[in-house]
């Protein structure tokens, strides 16, 4: 192989090359070893970690939210349902120039600053690629049409439909049904882990009223769907599925008919009406005016709308029936009378002479009757019919605050009624201990005397007045108002009198209140049934000793509150009503007609004839099928 006469030292070159070749081979083997080690590191040592990452990529567990239970009235009229809401979403990865796209969309549909702000916030939070980001909800049909027509030049837009809560009667049931709105971090924090899991797919949460109280039943149980998706988020197949358990439907004891009558009867005045069936405690109507439109609150109220609600001096978000505390005035006189009779401090025969005021011994202070010159000789019956203050001053003083407190609490006055709503106000039925604890003052005789006509420290809610009336109507039965049937435990028992005939006699007195000489005669005109009632007027503005006041000079909001409690038919009561009209001046003329309309709505049939509806049945027999 050797070539002669070469200038190059081929042997030397070959030797150098051979050495280098060996080095190269070693280098190749070394680098291959590095690659193999790397593969062993990734595929053997870190295998489980990357398997998890890979599964996280492809397998998604989607929570499937259960459909929320429907709410109906006692006759099956739907009060809360679920409707699809169309919203516009953007898939950022497809959208291209985002600002330009949003600009284009702004020309087609209305986008306010709140929408854009929420969108930007959602866009920047952690999400998977190709996951749509909501831009605007509540698309109208016209807006959807406009978007669809232009879809070809709007890459990355998507219109999705999700069920949202809808209240077909809007404002009518606002305070009793309450509303749902978007679940937030605080709601979730307040839950246990199990509950949190149950809400994984849920967007809405009962915020107030029945929606809040029966949240557990209405919500149902979350379902799961394990799906395999590709990198674009498209679901390729369902690996595993557990369907959700739908929320229970809730049939309320409310009657649409009575509710509407109460709402309409109040008209534009501020006030509250609660109607209860004394036979079983069913709440038939629960109205507080002004109300609000719950549908606005579901989908995220605009700031403008919300501040309008908040700054409204009439306070439409305030539930007057449940939380409004008002002096009950004379409306509690029948209950006080029962207490006086039962405690033995008075009887139906005892009379007093009323000079128009009441005075304690050794005290010059005169407690005035509403009738300046007095009622003359007064027994208990007359005292109720004419609402004689002096009689009750005297009787109340003899009864004493301790016994008064005891009896009134049994009527649920100044004590929680136990209704199935949260945040019930308990009102105040004062006692010596109460005044010491909350006012840090000793109890005075005058306090007892003021309390005897439902003034002074006494504050009750319209719901309590209706409940106390229902208890009176049912002759002391324990009545716990209930909207949907679930009873709350309350520390009340029924009231058993030493002489049970006193119930009848008090009812007679209350029927006489709507008679020709009674203070509530207006409300009983042309009634088809006997109405037992008691009017009340609660002072907002206190009048000094020996002063008279002119109603016209007082600002509207300083006028007395008008109150009325009533039940009927008097012999076999099927409805008890408590009415409050803020600044309505006179219970008899303002609140009375409201109570009458509510009772008529329940007790009269379509032809205007008396037809007492049956007691609420949990599972009513299905209507008999009519053969053709």
């Amino acid at each position, binding site marked *: 192989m050797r070539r002669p006469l070469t200038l190059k030292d081929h042997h030397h070159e070959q030797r150098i090359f051979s050495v280098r070749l060996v080095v190269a081979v070693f280098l*190749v083997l070394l680098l291959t070893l590095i690659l*193999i080690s790397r593969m062993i590191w990734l595929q053997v040592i870190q295998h489980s970690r990357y398997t998890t990452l890979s599964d996280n990529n492809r397998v998604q567990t989607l929570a499937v939210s259960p459909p929320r239970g429907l709410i109906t009235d006692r006759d099956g009229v739907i009060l809360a349902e679920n409707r699809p809401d169309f919203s516009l979403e953007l898939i950022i990865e497809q959208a291209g120039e985002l600002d330009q796209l949003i600009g284009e969309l702004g020309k087609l549909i209305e986008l306010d600053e709140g929408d854009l702000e929420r969108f930007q916030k959602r866009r920047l939070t952690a999400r998977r690629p190709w996951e749509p980001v909501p831009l605007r909800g509540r698309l109208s049909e016209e807006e959807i049409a406009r978007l669809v027509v232009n879809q070809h030049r709007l890459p990355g837009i998507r219109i999705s439909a999700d069920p949202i809560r809808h209240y077909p009667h809007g404002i009518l049931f606002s305070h009793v049904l309450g509303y749902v709105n978007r679940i937030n971090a605080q709601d979730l924090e307040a839950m246990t882990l199990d509950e949190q899991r149950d809400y994984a797919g849920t967007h809405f949460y009962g915020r107030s009223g029945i929606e809040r109280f029966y949240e557990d039943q209405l919500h149902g149980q979350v379902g799961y769907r394990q799906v395999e998706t590709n990198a674009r988020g498209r679901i390729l197949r369902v690996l595993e599925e557990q369907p959700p358990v739908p929320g229970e439907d809730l049939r309320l004891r409310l009657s649409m008919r009575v509710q509407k009558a109460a709402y309409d009867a109040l008209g534009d005045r501020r006030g509250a009406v609660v109607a209860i069936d004394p036979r079983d405690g069913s709440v038939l109507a629960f109205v507080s005016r002004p109300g609000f439109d719950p549908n606005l609150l579901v989908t995220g109220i605009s700031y403008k709308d919300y501040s309008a609600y908040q700054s409204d001096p009439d306070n439409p978000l305030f539930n007057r029936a449940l939380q409004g505390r008002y002096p009950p005035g004379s409306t509690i006189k029948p209950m006080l009378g029962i207490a006086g009779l039962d405690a033995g401090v008075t009887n139906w025969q005892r009379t007093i002479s009323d000079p128009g005021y009441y005075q304690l011994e050794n005290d010059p202070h005169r407690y005035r009757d509403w009738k300046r010159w007095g009622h003359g000789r007064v027994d208990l019956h007359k005292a109720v019919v004419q609402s004689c203050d002096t009689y009750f001053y005297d009787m109340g003083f003899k009864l004493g605050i301790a016994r008064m407190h005891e009896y009134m609490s049994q009527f649920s006055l100044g004590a929680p009624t136990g209704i199935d709503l949260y945040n019930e106000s308990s009102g105040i039925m004062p006692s010596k201990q109460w005044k010491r604890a909350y006012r840090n003052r000793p109890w005075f005789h005058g306090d007892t005397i003021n309390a005897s006509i439902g003034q002074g420290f006494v504050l009750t809610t319209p719901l309590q007045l209706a409940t106390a009336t229902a208890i009176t109507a049912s002759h002391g039965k324990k009545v716990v108002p209930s909207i949907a049937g679930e009873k709350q435990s309350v520390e009340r028992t029924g009231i058993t009198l030493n002489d049970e005939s006193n119930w009848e006699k008090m009812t007679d007195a209350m029927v006489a209140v709507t008679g020709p000489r009674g203070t509530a005669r207006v409300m009983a005109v042309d009634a088809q049934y006997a109405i037992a009632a008691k009017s009340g007027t609660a002072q907002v503005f206190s009048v000094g000793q020996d002063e008279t006041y002119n109603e016209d000079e007082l600002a509207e909001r300083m006028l007395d509150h008008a109150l009325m409690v009533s039940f009927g038919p008097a012999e076999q009561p099927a409805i008890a009503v408590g009415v409050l009209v803020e600044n309505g001046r006179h219970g008899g003329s303002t609140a009375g007609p409201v109570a009458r309309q509510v009772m008529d709505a329940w007790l009269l049939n379509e032809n205007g004839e008396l037809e007492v509806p049956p007691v609420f049945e949990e599972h009513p027999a299905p209507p008999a099928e009519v053969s053709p």
Partner: protein
Amino acid sequence: MSQREYLRQMPGQTGATLSPGLAMRLHLDAPLLAGLFVLMLGGLAVLYSAGGESLEMVIRQCVRFSAGLTALFLLAQIPPRSYRFWAPFLYCGGLGLLVLVLIAGTEAKGAQRWLSIPGIGRFQPAEAMKLAVPAMVAWYFSERTLPPKLLDVLVALALLGVPAALIGMQPDLGTAILIAASGLVVLFMAGLSWRLIAVAVLLVVTAAPLMYFFVMHDYQRNRVDTFLNPEADPRGTGWNIIQSKTAIGSGGVDGKGWLDGTQSRLDFLPESSTDFILAVLSEEFGLVGVSVLLMIYLVIVGRGFFISWQAQETFSRLLASSLTMTFFIYIFVNIGMVSGLLPVVGVPLPLISYGGTSIVTLLASFGMLMSIHTHRRLMSY
């Protein structure tokens, strides 16, 4: 040399399919060809899965293989002395075309790499330089005495540096690195002194940060950033490498099975049929599959080294070893990049990745290797 001796040196004896006589007459090397075929067939199977079971892709890849094998066959017929003779001309012509690309090239994906020739189509001059540069440097050293003197080293560096720089300006970092490497391998095999190698390594280590800040394009700098910390932007530039490592790691020892790799099949892995096809293979065939692949590669590389060892004169030795080593660098850079050992540079997995003129160039380089091996007899006379 006796017939016996000649036969002893013949490589084809171990080849199963082609008889030594036939392979010899066709100037083909049976073991090398067998290795390449196994590689290509396996690659088609992986590609079928990576491309979402697209037969069209497989067919187009087959067309490229055919073109490459044709080039291999033709180049194998040309004796090495012709390569040696034409090397300077090819090199200068290629250099001219590279300049032309920068002036009149077609842009694709933000880089100017293609040269359109009306009527013929378009091609990448850089691909031709993958063969021309090692040939040129080998030619240069074959005219000099070895080991090279410092001046020769500087000339050689210029010879490989100019085209690499031109390609880097396109910009195509992957190809530039491969071309520079092919020239450097020649320099190394020619006997570059260890002391100079040490100095060069030191220089690279100190120059790398300077390159990063002053020479690199933004997209190249991004790749380095991503390499150093892929988790910094997992949804953006780090996505590729995270998904690639996830694919490899989740494959485990025996893999998820052919057509069952979720990372690529569900589109989580970008570039799954081109530069990142190894991730698909690792996911579906696991560590076993990767090991088999590396084994086949090592057989081919080993055969290449054997051919360079058997080569009878300096030019052939240097060219053969450079082509072989460059082939391995392809493999190392690609697998290193896909598995997160190296920054992402656009280097395909040889003969497995879909598309690119690289297939034709690679098979052509094996044609040159076979030419070197099968023309030895003529050299010895």
